[in-house]
């Protein structure tokens, strides 16, 4: 039943504005693929083109072996879940779920059985006679999901499905969707600006920025081996330092920061370091690791966030377990070691470059 989704060179222009440009990727059959990016990155437009709700300016779309590019919305048999649920407000829960079966003229008895089945699946049987306005946000989105799944779609497209919900409900629903997906195994494409959502749910993440793909990879690859400065800055939090590349290191002030990726010698670079990849030690004196002064300590229970000022004035933030901090206080001079730092040519980082010293940027709940 489930098919892979493949798009090639997908491009969409609205007047002079290029919303999507040369997007190519495959969402494997039965998996969850996330389209991750900030708002305005074109990810929703890609989804709407796959559904047939927008016509691509250029490019092709396949579901399985069948090309869909010129097919109408109805013919594509996709399930679509909208951010704001888009439930039919004049219909009950039951009628909403039945809609896709009724317009396809499924026999009445089969309709009834299928709706029952789906209401059981989303655990909303007792709410069948309610109208959407009588449901909570989480319940509405479950109805929307049941409605999308009822006609047995080839693929499921989710456009920021949890975007309009409270953080708590969002978490619950995310876990629930994960379970549901394991059970159904329908190819799913999830559009989100929430990296946690993408990293937790998806087998594969497509990071988009300004209409283009920045990187395609597993959640691990995206997080640990960002291919561009944008990905490094957008996924997870990162310190951004400035320096010059010298033989596999970046010279930041007097410190030599080892880097994990290949960058040409001699260029100005931005170095991205995850806060949990910064190690803090008591000052030993002499040569060796970089030295810094403790400027601020914020303790969040077991985790502490420490702002450190390096010799050249740049600030770097470290995150470490609070109990490793017992002998470090404000104003102390400490040693700093970083690992898994990644450098990108400064000009590549335009648009995401932040002033040195901005420290770690949390992106989890933007």
């Amino acid at each position: 039943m489930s098919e892979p989704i493949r798009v090639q060179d997908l491009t969409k222009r609205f007047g002079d504005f290029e919303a999507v440009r040369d997007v190519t990727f495959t969402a494997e059959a039965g998996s969850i693929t996330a389209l991750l990016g900030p708002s305005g990155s074109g990810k929703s437009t890609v989804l709407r083109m796959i559904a047939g709700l927008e016509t691509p300016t250029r490019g092709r779309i396949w579901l399985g072996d069948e090309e869909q590019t010129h097919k109408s919305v109805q013919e594509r048999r996709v399930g679509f879940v909208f951010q704001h649920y888009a439930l039919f407000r004049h219909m009950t829960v039951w009628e909403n779920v039945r809609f896709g079966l009724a317009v396809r003229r499924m026999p009445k008895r089969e309709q009834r059985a299928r709706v029952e089945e789906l209401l059981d699946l989303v655990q909303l049987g007792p709410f069948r006679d309610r109208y959407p306005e009588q449901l909570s946000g989480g319940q509405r989105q479950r109805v929307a999901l049941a409605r999308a799944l009822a006609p047995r779609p080839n693929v499921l497209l989710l456009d920021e499905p949890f975007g309009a919900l409270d953080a708590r409900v969002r978490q619950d629903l995310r876990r629930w969707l994960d379970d549901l997906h394991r059970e159904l195994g329908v190819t799913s494409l999830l559009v989100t600006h929430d990296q946690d959502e993408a990293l937790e749910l998806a087998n594969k993440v497509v990071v988009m920025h300004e209409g283009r793909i920045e990187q395609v990879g597993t959640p691990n690859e995206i997080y640990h081996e960002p291919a561009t400065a944008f990905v490094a800055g957008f996924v997870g939090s990162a310190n951004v330092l400035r320096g010059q590349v010298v033989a596999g290191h970046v010279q930041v002030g007097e410190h030599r920061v080892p880097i994990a990726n290949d960058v040409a010698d001699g260029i100005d670079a931005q170095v991205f370091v995850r806060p949990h990849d910064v190690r803090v030690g008591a000052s030993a004196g002499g040569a060796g690791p970089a030295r810094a002064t403790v400027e601020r300590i914020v303790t969040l229970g077991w985790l502490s966030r420490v702002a450190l000022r390096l010799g050249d004035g740049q600030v770097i933030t470290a995150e470490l377990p609070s109990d490793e901090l017992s002998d470090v206080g404000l104003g102390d001079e400490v040693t700093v070691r970083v690992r898994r730092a990644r450098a990108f040519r400064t000009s590549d980082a335009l648009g995401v470059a932040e002033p040195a010293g901005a420290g770690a940027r949390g992106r989890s709940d933007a």
Partner: protein
Amino acid sequence: MSAGAGVRRKHDRARMRRGRGVAVRGALVTVCVLYLAVLLLAPLGGIVWQARKPGWSALGDPFTRSDVVHAFWLTAIIALITVAVTTAFGVIVAWVLIRHRFRGRALLNGLVDLPFALSPVTVGLACVLLFGRGGWFHEFFAARGIQIIFALPSMVLVTIFISIPFTIREVQPVLEEIGTEEEDAARTLGASVLQTFFRVTLPNIRWGLLYGIALSAARAIGEIGAVLVVSGLIQGRTETATLYIYRAMEERKTASAYAVALTLAGVSILILAAIEWLKHKRTREDEA
């Protein structure tokens, strides 16, 4: 000056201000009631007063006359056709204006209000110019033996023209407000364009649409200026209820003029009641 006195004075000032507020509001309400009563209720009361003068039993007399009965029939037919046409096209035009962006859209949108701005007599005159002897379309219809001017077609035409804006203007904001997501959802669920319209869009705009229909109907029933010009005033053939009143007044048959006027007023009040009920229904649904 003690702090207590200051507080008290402030308190007094607030009370005075509140007192003045009540007075102003009272004056405004009075003006509003008087204005509406004098301008709206007085004429209506006058008609009732005059109509009952010959005695209530005589009120029904005009309705035994064939020209009066015919006038009502004609009004009903014109109103029905008008409502049917303005409803169908009104929804289409509103939908196109809200859902599509095209060159000249703003102009078209502004044009919708033209019938509000034009005097109905002008509309009638324009119709005569187009379809009357020597008009652009006269030859075409005359050759086929179709009478437009001084006949039902032109009367329907001008009434439609005058009633165009109501449905469009009532449906537009509702369409705008419901957005396109539900329609998109219906399409992804396999609904055709028509299924989407009848199962999703129409139920969502129904109260606004019914409100527009009621307004169009009231307008069509009451129209006289444009119809007067194109009808030719042929008794028992092109005479609507409003035209009958007009002629009865001229012929000093005031009793039947008032009786017919009272009936039309009654219909209007019924439509008005329906409109109020619809409005109530709509706001209640919005709040739910």
